[in-house]
């Protein structure tokens, strides 16, 4: 399954629901375009829901980092929601678990932006 990206608004937080594979090529670029579009619109509170992501490679990890720096550089915040065990493992191996704010519960994640 290739990547599927959908956005929805919860209060003033934009939740990006990602499903499928975030890998080099289409998967990574699709996510990048969505993030850049939101940042250009002035959205500063972004919650990336990775609960339905089945596979992520090193390029996909790179896209998460790129998304984080893009949003942060514009004065915004990007946080992660619903990591699978495999994605958590990847973030731990790459030491990025300490960089991202990670949540299991969406309501709690949304409240954290306040």
């Amino acid at each position: 399954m290739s990547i599927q990206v959908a956005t929805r608004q919860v209060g003033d937080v934009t939740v990006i629901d990602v499903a499928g594979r975030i890998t080099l090529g289409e998967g990574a670029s699709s996510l990048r375009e969505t993030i850049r579009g939101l940042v250009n619109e002035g959205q500063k509170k972004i919650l990336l829901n990775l609960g339905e992501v089945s596979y992520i490679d090193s390029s996909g990890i790179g896209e998460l980092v790129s998304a984080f720096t893009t949003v942060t550089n514009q004065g915004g915040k990007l946080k992660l929601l619903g990591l699978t065990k495999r994605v958590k493992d990847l973030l731990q191996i790459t030491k990025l678990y300490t960089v991202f704010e990670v949540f299991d519960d969406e309501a709690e994640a949304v409240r954290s932006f306040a």
Partner: protein
Amino acid sequence: MKKQEDQPTGESKAVDAVLDSELESADGAEEIVLRVAQEVGFSEEELHRLGMAVRETVVNAVVHGNRYSAHKKVRLQVFKAPDHVAVTVADEGNGFDLASLPDPLAEENLLQQSGRGLLLIRAFVDEFQMRRLSPCGTEVKLVKYRNRRSGQSEGSSKEE
């Protein structure tokens, strides 16, 4: 693809394939290796880890080794034994110095967009070897054992 005689290590060659220098080759290579690993009896998690290591290795061969050249190929060989699978991936590029690569775990590199492929490969297999080929190219060998938890501290890693 052809099957050959047993290797000294008890491995038998299961696959010998030549792949084009395009990103789709990573998908194909992953599929080929996982088919062999399934025959050996790898668990789902072991398959995932080996598959990702193969994928990252082939992407490196295509992108950094052959630089997408239509004139250069990636050779994939898969060997199987009762307790492990060995994979070699060879490109026709100019090679590189492993020691010269930045450490992706260094504080100043944590927010770099790229440079984590080798880290993941080494984390997900039990043995990692790299050697220069003559007259050109680089060959990476990955070995993953069944029922053994891979990790950087447990695996061997060397550059020949």
